[in-house]
């Protein structure tokens, strides 16, 4: 059952290099996803959540490189594997679905051809049985709510709606029985009622197949309801991670608190929503201390001087001096109070 660690990302550093710059897009990122667990990776645009999923899939663009840390799937370190070994891993062990299902499907081939080729690319030729696969593909599509799947396998992607295409892509990913599914904004292009259908499919797959899901999204409400744990990212690093219930009910990091306060609630009327002053710092000009300090209401001298470590606090991990009794932060407070 769940609980057994599947994916462990430890102290991961990723940089994007261009002729002029060398950007530290991920800094000291550590997360884990256990078997049968859905982990939400949230943050605003540019926080590095998509880079993290690309790094795990080893799909970083050519100028993106892992400069430190490890990505372990079971007992293998993916950062040490050669491209061929990674290719064999994609599909049977890790699969990925994206926001726009059209970009994952070729418009000029019927769905069946694409499913067949995708599976054939990842299994041993001797084990490949097209007839059996077709039956299994049809059964999986039916399971995901596509009626008349046997006939519809011969349809082209444009003959399906956005929600149906996303089901096809999920079915393709499932046929190789991966342990981990990385879903990068899989419902962002869909309408609310269609999003609910896709999300309920993911929840069911976790329950029935013990599938682990790394769910990358900007939609905090979706995370609150779908995920077991949440990882909050800001500007390339993890600021808070813990069980969804505790993080959303009682966020500790000032950034998490602001994010949650910025979202309108349906049954609770507030006069004003929480906003965050200033803007996300540029990766080429990161401040010396805590990356959030310039926008943080709790920032003090300590926060501008050094980068806080991740520490355990109230059942979760938080990267903030204000929650670290061993830091000089409390001392700063005394100074402020006296002054």
């Amino acid at each position: 059952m769940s609980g057994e660690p599947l994916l462990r990302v430890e102290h991961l550093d990723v940089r994007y290099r261009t002729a002029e710059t060398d950007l530290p897009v991920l800094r000291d990122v550590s997360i884990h996803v256990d078997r049968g667990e859905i982990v939400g990776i949230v943050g605003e645009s540019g926080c590095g959540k998509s880079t993290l999923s690309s790094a795990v899939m080893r799909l970083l663009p050519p100028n993106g490189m892992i400069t430190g840390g490890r990505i372990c799937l079971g007992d293998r370190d993916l950062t040490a594997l050669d491209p061929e070994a990674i290719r064999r891993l994609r599909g049977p062990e890790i699969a990925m679905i994206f926001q726009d299902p059209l970009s994952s499907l070729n418009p000029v081939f019927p769905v069946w051809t694409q499913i067949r080729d995708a599976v054939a690319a990842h299994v041993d030729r001797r084990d490949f049985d097209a007839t059996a696969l077709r039956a299994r593909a049809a059964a999986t599509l039916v399971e995901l709510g596509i009626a008349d799947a046997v006939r519809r396998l011969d349809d082209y992607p444009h003959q399906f709606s956005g929600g149906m295409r996303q089901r096809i892509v999920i079915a393709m990913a499932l046929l190789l029985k991966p342990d981990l599914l990385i879903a990068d904004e899989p419902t962002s292009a869909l309408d609310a009622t269609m999003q609910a259908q896709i999300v309920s499919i993911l929840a069911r797959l976790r329950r029935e197949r013990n599938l682990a899901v790394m769910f990358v999204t900007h939609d905090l409400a979706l995370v609150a309801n779908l995920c077991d744990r949440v990882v909050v990212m800001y500007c390339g690093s993890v600021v808070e991670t813990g069980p969804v219930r505790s993080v959303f009910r009682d966020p500790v990091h000032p950034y998490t608190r602001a994010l949650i306060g910025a979202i309108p609630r349906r049954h609770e009327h507030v006069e004003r929503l929480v906003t965050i002053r200033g803007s996300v710092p540029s990766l080429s000009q990161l401040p010396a201390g805590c990356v959030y300090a310039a926008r943080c209401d709790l920032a003090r001298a300590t926060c501008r001087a050094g980068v806080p470590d991740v520490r355990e606090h109230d059942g979760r991990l938080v990267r903030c001096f204000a929650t670290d009794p061993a830091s000089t932060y409390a001392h700063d407070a005394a100074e402020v109070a006296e002054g």
Partner: protein
Amino acid sequence: MSAGPDLLHVDNLSTHFADRRGVIDRVARRTPSVVRAVDGVDLVVAHNEIFGLVGESGCGKTTLGRTILGLVPAAEGTIRFDGDDITDLGRGERRALRRRMQMIFQDPYASLSPRMRVSSLLTEPYRIQNTPRGERYSVSELLEMVNLSTEQADKYPHELSGGQARRIGIARTLALRPEFIVADEPTSGLDVSAAAAILNLIQDLRREFGLTFLVITHNVNTLSFLADRLAVMYLGRIVEMGRAADVLDSPSHPYTRALLAAVPGIDPGGADIERAALIEGEIPSPRNPPSGCRFRTRCLHARAGVCEQSPELREIAAGHAIACNRWPEVQQDKEWSRAADLV
């Protein structure tokens, strides 16, 4: 809030789009197929009110907003603004009215010329309207209204963040001192914190300038913060309308209930996510909508012999109306109580 007398009256409004006919269609004398994007909508917006229009893509909410502003012609019905019929206006009258009725467009970058600096973008409405000097706001006044610093005046649109570009779009609409603003998805594409700032700004502008807003959105939670009243649209028609708090606390049309169940709130584990999809399938094509109740093909509660008739929007409580032929019996359905904890 402090809603005054009625400002906007929309009666039985319809907007149709006809397919362009090719040579073959004309030779074969095919009648063009007509999409009834908006189909018989009635609504009233009071002075200084924020009225929300919510629905999924293709429901006609944007078309309704554009028809009210005269950007698309109405096929049937009337629109009255401050007592005057504005359904069919000549060019000159329409231009004069534009000062009073403005729109915040969905894509701020698409509505800002990339070659103009913020300062000239902000004064462009004055050049178009030939506004006398004495009635113009200065660039810095306009920037201040939307909480931007005067340093932004020399920038080009590509130098602005999404939230800043949205504010410039809003400042442009404010330049002409309008009374009524249609805001189409005012926070789409924005990050959570930038979106919150825009929502706060809309509330501030309503208070400070006595503005009236029609806010079009697909996100019903936005309206819980923003709207005094709201209408839910499905396939060109309003299915539920009322005070925002009433509709959100006791959604009564089966479609509204499905929509609210599908959009979870932020409280963790509040909803059973595996069951949150109360309706299956997708919105039928507006080209060929179901007869009678347009939601009946996806409705958990549809009954043969009852739902083939077009339902009227009827009050079920003071100021709260729904269009459902099965009200109030529908509440006795087993599915109704089973879904109650989801909505």
